[in-house]
Structures are given as C-alpha cells and as structure tokens.
C-alpha cells in the first residue's frame, strides 16, 4: 500500500503508543481488570482512527486484540484462552474497535466532503457574481473559460456556436491570444450509424470514429451529447465527457473534451477543452467542470439574448423609419402628383395653360424629395464613403450659395470669413455642399422673409466650422434633441412651409459620415445657429504653394 511520509510517521507513532500503553499496563497487570485493559486499548484504537484514518484504526484494533489475548488473558504469553468467557470479552473488544474506527472514518469523510463542497459552492458563487457583474457577455464567457482552464490545468478551452452561415464560430476562448484555428467548422459531418450509448459512464460505447472533429460540432448540436477525443484522434461519443475522463479504470489517453452546452434542453453551444497530454480529472473536478459548463451555457445564452435584444432594437428603429418614410412618401409624393395630374388634365382638355408653371414647381418639389430620400437611404446604408480631399471654404460656401440661390432670393446673406486667410478642410465637397445647402434652406424656411442670414467660417483647432445664423424663432429646449431625427418637423410649422423634414437629418448624416457633425445652439438675441463641422486642413503659409 502506498503511503505518504506523513502517514508513515502517524502509523509508527500510534503503534508506538500502543506498545507503550501495553507495556505500562503489563507492569500494572496484577491490579488491572479485563475491562480496564479493554477500555484503554479501545481508547488507543479510537485515537489512531481519528488521527490517521480507518486503515490505521483497523490495524491498531487487530494489534490490540492480539496484545490483549497474549499478555492480559490467562494463560499469559500464549494465544490460548482458559476461560471461555474471556473469548466473549476479546471478540466484543475487537468488534467494538472495528465499528468505532469505521464510524469515526465515516463521520470524518462526510465532514471533509461537506467542506470541499462548501468550498466549491463558494467558488462557483464567487464566479457567478463576478461574471454577472461583467457588463459585456463576451467578457463573462471569457472569465468562466479562464477559470476552467486554470482550475483544471488544461491548455485551452473555447466555445463554439452556430455562425451566421452554415458553419460554427468560436465566440470565446481562453487563453485570449489563442490563434483562431478551427474558426470555421463545417457542419456536414455525421457519424456512421447512430452510436448506441447507454446512460452514464458505465455504458462504455464501442463507437469510435476517426472522422475529423469538425463535423462533430454539428452532430453534438443535433444530438445534444458530448464526445471525448482520444490521443490517436478517435472520437468517442459519451453523455458526460467530464465524468468519462474521471473514470479510474480508463486506460486510453483523452486529449480533448467536447461538452454540449444545454439551456432548457436546447443545445446552445459546444465547450471544447483541450490539453496536449492525457486529461485525467478527479470526480470532484469532473463535477466542477459540469457545473462550470452550465455557467458557460448560461453565458452563451445571455450573449444570444443580448444580441437578439440589440437586433430587435435596430429593427424597431428601422421599422419606425420605414413607417415615417411610408407616411412621407404617400403624402409628400402624392400631393404634388395630384396637382400635376389635375392641371395636366385641364390642359389636355383645352383648359388654360397658365397652370404649366405650377406643374414645373411641383416637379421640382418631387425631384427634391426623391433626392432627399436617396440621400437618406445612402446615409442609412452607410454608402457614404470617405472620399475626402482638400477643399476650400470659399468653394463650399460659394457653391452652396449658388445652389440655394432660388430659396435665398431677396434675402441679405452676410458672409463672415477671416480676412486674408484661405480656409480649407479635408472633406468630400458634394456631401459637405449638400449639408450646407440644407442648413441654408432650413434657416431660410424657418426665419421671417427678408431677415438676413449670416454664414460664418472659422478654423478652430483641427476643425473647419461653418455656421449658419438666422433670426428665426429658434428651437424650444424640449425639441432640441429631436430636430436631427428624420421626418421631424416642428409642431408649430405652418403646413405650407414645405420640406420633407429630412434636411437636418441628412445634413448631420452627411457630416458625420465624413468625421464631422452638425451642431445646434441658440443665437444670442434670438434665432438659431447651426454649425457644420468638418475636418480641417492645415495649409501653412501661402508660399508653401509656390511651385
């Protein structure tokens, strides 16, 4: 029997105690009753049992039994027994000793198991609290995998779930820098025939398959059963892979475990634990791994739910936009169409032709709306690519004034540029122009006819800021957060003010896509300031450009 050094010392010590006690009693034998001897020996057996376990207790019991017989029951120094009643004493002593040693052992191991379990529960509770505290579900998964890896001393573990397409993807792995091998696994592997596996580890299945591990993930998803990968690459289907590795009589080497992650009887992922040598767990470790695998399953589920919630939110926003779009399209497109149709009908039937001018105006309105909708969809789909070039503020403002000419007609436009300095930025002129024109149109639409509009351009830090200042009614505090939403129109807007409610939203979208933005602030003395912010460009002195 294999013993540790500490156990050997204990055994020697307690046999020493037995000899010492026996010798002492031998000296006093004349004055001692059999009951004294039996009780004192029993004390030694109990002491030994509680100190070093059941085996020592039993050994001490037999040693004391022999010593009792040999030294203390007449005829002395023989194993013969004169009085048959002495047999009764002796056998009773032996049985009492053995039972006591066994009971002590049982009590002690129960207490130890309880302590171990308490420690395990403690660890799991801490882990649970820690992982729940992590804001991002990916981090929680990583944390659990780290615990599994360090606790079991394996090389790596990772979690595979269904990818967006056909295959499977690793969503978390420990250690973090493990190369993303097996990132895409095909799902089309199936074992030859359905492996017959009995419940539990005792039903040792014969089915081994040397197929690659890749299709295995898919099989595990479908069947909800685990697998162990042996050193020779063979795959063995088992119901509880951790328990499988803990089987003491197992002779083959296990290299990897594939543990199905199930939540409410549905497989949500596969936990893969890998190690280069033989993975041999204790029963406690196997239980611990099973418990942690459930945590991993919950983590995967949490991640899925979070992703689902995000997708639902995105869909809700798209849906809101879509319904706003439908309203706008049905109203803003049909109104001019109705007018055009009515007037065209009149003209076609010999009516007055002076309505042709209205047809032209309404066509322009339709054209503007179609342009707005196209821009909006380009922004929403992220199709505005960065095509930034060095452009001057002169160009931008000049082109915007020309394009907004019809709208700004009859209105004084003050242009406030720093004297003797050419301002420039790095942006796409067409998109910046569209944004600025929208700001000008907005200012014109919501400020009294004839009131002046100021355009002020400044370089501030690495930003080019072009502000459009009007003397309109401004924006109420409670509406400021909403003015950049698509299809937003102020509640007080007169119905004939026109516009699609897209102008500011498009302006901001176009500016943001270029690394800038549109800012609002109330103007001192009444009115609004909308500022188009664009990435600036350092020009240095003019002499730089002499070529």
């Amino acid at each position: 029997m294999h013993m540790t050094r500490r156990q050997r010392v204990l055994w020697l010590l307690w046999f020493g105690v037995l000899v010492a006690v026996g010798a002492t009693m031998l000296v006093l034998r004349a004055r001692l009753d059999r009951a004294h001897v039996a009780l004192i020996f029993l004390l030694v057996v109990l002491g030994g049992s509680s100190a070093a376990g059941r085996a020592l207790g039993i050994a001490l019991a037999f040693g004391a039994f022999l010593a009792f017989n040999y030294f203390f029951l007449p005829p002395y120094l023989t194993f013969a027994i004169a009085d048959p009643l002495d047999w009764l004493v002796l056998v009773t002593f032996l049985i009492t000793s053995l039972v006591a040693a066994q009971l002590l052992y049982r009590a002690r191991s129960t207490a130890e198991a309880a302590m171990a379990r308490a420690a395990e529960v403690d660890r799991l509770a801490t882990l649970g609290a820690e992982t729940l505290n992590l804001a991002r579900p990916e981090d929680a998964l990583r944390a659990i995998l780290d615990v599994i890896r360090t606790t079991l001393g394996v090389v790596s573990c990772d979690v595979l779930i269904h990818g967006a397409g056909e295959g499977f993807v690793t969503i978390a792995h420990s250690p973090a820098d493990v190369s993303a091998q097996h990132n895409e696994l095909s799902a089309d592997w199936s074992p030859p025939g359905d492996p017959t596996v009995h419940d539990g580890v005792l039903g040792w299945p014969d089915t081994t398959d040397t197929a690659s591990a890749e299709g295995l993930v898919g099989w595990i998803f479908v069947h909800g059963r685990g697998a162990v990968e042996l050193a020779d690459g063979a795959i063995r289907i088992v119901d509880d892979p951790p328990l499988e590795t803990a089987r003491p009589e197992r002779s083959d080497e296990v290299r990897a475990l594939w543990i199905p992650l199930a939540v409410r009887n549905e497989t949500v992922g596969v936990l893969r634990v890998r190690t280069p040598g033989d993975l041999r767990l204790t029963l406690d470790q196997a239980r611990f791994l099973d418990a942690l695998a459930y945590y991993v399953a919950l983590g995967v589920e949490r991640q899925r739910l979070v992703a689902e919630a995000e997708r639902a939110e995105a869909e809700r926003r798209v849906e809101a936009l879509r319904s706003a779009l439908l309203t706008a399209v049905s109203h803003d497109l049909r109104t001019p169409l109705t007018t055009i149709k009515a007037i065209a009908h009149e003209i076609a039937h010999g009516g007055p032709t002076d309505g042709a001018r209205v047809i032209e105006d309404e066509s322009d309105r339709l054209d503007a709306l179609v342009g707005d909708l196209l821009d909006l969809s380009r922004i929403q789909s992220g199709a505005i690519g960065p095509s930034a070039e060095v452009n001057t503020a002169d160009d931008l403002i000049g082109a915007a004034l020309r394009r907004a000419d019809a709208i700004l007609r009859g209105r004084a436009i003050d242009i406030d540029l720093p004297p003797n300095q050419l301002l420039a930025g790095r942006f796409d002129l067409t998109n910046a122009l569209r944004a600025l024109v929208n700001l000008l149109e907005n200012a014109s639409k919501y400020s009294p006819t004839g009131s002046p509009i100021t355009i002020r351009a400044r370089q501030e830090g690495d930003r080019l800021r072009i502000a459009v200042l009007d003397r309109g009614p401004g924006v109420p505090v409670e509406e400021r957060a909403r003015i950049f939403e698509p299809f937003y129109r102020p509640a007080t807007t007169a119905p004939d003010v026109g516009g699609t409610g897209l102008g500011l939203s498009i302006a901001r979208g176009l500016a943001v896509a270029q690394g800038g933005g549109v800012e609002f602030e109330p103007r001192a003395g009444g009115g609004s300031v909308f500022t188009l912010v664009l990435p600036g460009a350092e020009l240095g002195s003019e002499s730089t450009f002499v070529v």
Partner: protein
Amino acid sequence: MSTVTVLVIDDEPQIRRAVRNALISGRLLGANGDSAMDSPPVSGSDGQRRVRVVEAATGREGIDLAAAESPALVVLDLGLPDMPGIEVCREIRRWSSAPIIVLSARHADTEKVALLDAGADDYLTKPFSTIEFMARARAQLRRAQTAASPNDGVMTFGDVSVDLPKRRVERAGELLHLTPTEWLLLRTFVTHPRQTLTHRQLFHAVWGNAEGDAQQYLRVYVGHLRRKIEADPVRPQFIHTEAGVGYRFEPTGTS
C-alpha cells in the same frame, strides 16, 4: 442654306421628343451672347441656317449615325439598352470632335467625372429644364466654333486681361503677380472657356503626368487664383465650381 445636324441618342421616346422640340424651336442658333435667348435667329455668313435632328434609340445605332451624319452636336442619354453610355461616348470621341452633351439620371459625381474624362463635354442630370438644356447646347456649339477660330493670344474677361504669349496678367490695368502654378491654371482656364474641366484634366494641364503632394492642393491653388482675379471669391464670376467634378471658366462673367 447650311444645316446644323444634332444627333440625339436616347431610348426614351418622350425625352427624344422633348429634346427635338427644344432643338428645332429656333433658339439654338440665335446665339452670339449669353442673353441671346430671346433674340431672333441670326443669319450665318452664307445666309439662313437650319437645325436638323437625327435620332437613335440604341448605342450602336447612335455610333453608326454619328459616323454617317457628322453631327455638329451629340446629345447622349446614358441609360441605353444595349451598351453603357460611357462606351458610346468613348467610341464617338475616338474619331469625332463634335461636342457631346450627356443626359444622366444618376447624380453620382464620380460618374460625371468619368464621363468628362471619357471625352464628354458637358452633362445634365435629369430632370433638367429645357432652358438649361438649350443654354448648354448653345454654349457647346459656340465653343466648337470659337475653338476653330484663330486667337491673337490676348484674352480679356471682366477687368482682367491675359496675354498668353507674354505671360502677363493685368487686372484693372495693374500687373498681377501669379505663382507659376496659378499661371498654369489660369492659362488652362482661359484656353478652355465654358468647358467643365475635371480635377484630373486640370492636374494634367498643370503638373503633366507627374504625381506629387501638390496635386491634392489643386482646390487651394484655385482658391488663391480666385482671390486674385475675382471681386468676390465666394461668389465667383469667372471660375465656377462644379461640385465634385471640377471647374468651369466663364469668360463673360455669368454662370
């Protein structure tokens, strides 16, 4: 009586009809100045001129007609059923110098730039007004004529005069100092009046085929040049910005 032939390549009968009606309305040739829209048709040196419109519904047909009819102006719609409009443009430009005006429903600047680089002279995005179309068509015909006429080398616009052989620029009688790059830009503009020059064409004219850091500052050079020759550089009279495409020089100071 001489005849000006205009080729219209468009698969949409309604647009062909609108363009034809505009072209034969008699306003196409009444052009010596930009305000000539309302003036009566002007006689050519050899008497009355007439506009003849030839129509093609496909690209292939258009190319054949461009070869057979030697039109003075080509109006090309990009949305053709049989081949990309830009291919038609390239094909015609290979052997014809007739101005090409492109009609497009797409507003992407990159497409406009590609077209101008492929040899188109001007473009219009749908929907466009007849007035605008006629103004562009007149400008192209006039430019085709003036390009052929000899030039004494001195151009004047507004209060600026440019002496090309002497490399002298004066504004209101005073000598203007231009950097070499500004001079090359200005020379390119005045020798290509009313023509939209893409950024690439301007790069090429100023820097040749060389690649360099300076090129990204083309718009800045134009900005500096404007500040020297324009009264109000934000509302330029002569060098107009075609956003996302390039610049256009208008010697008569209109847009």
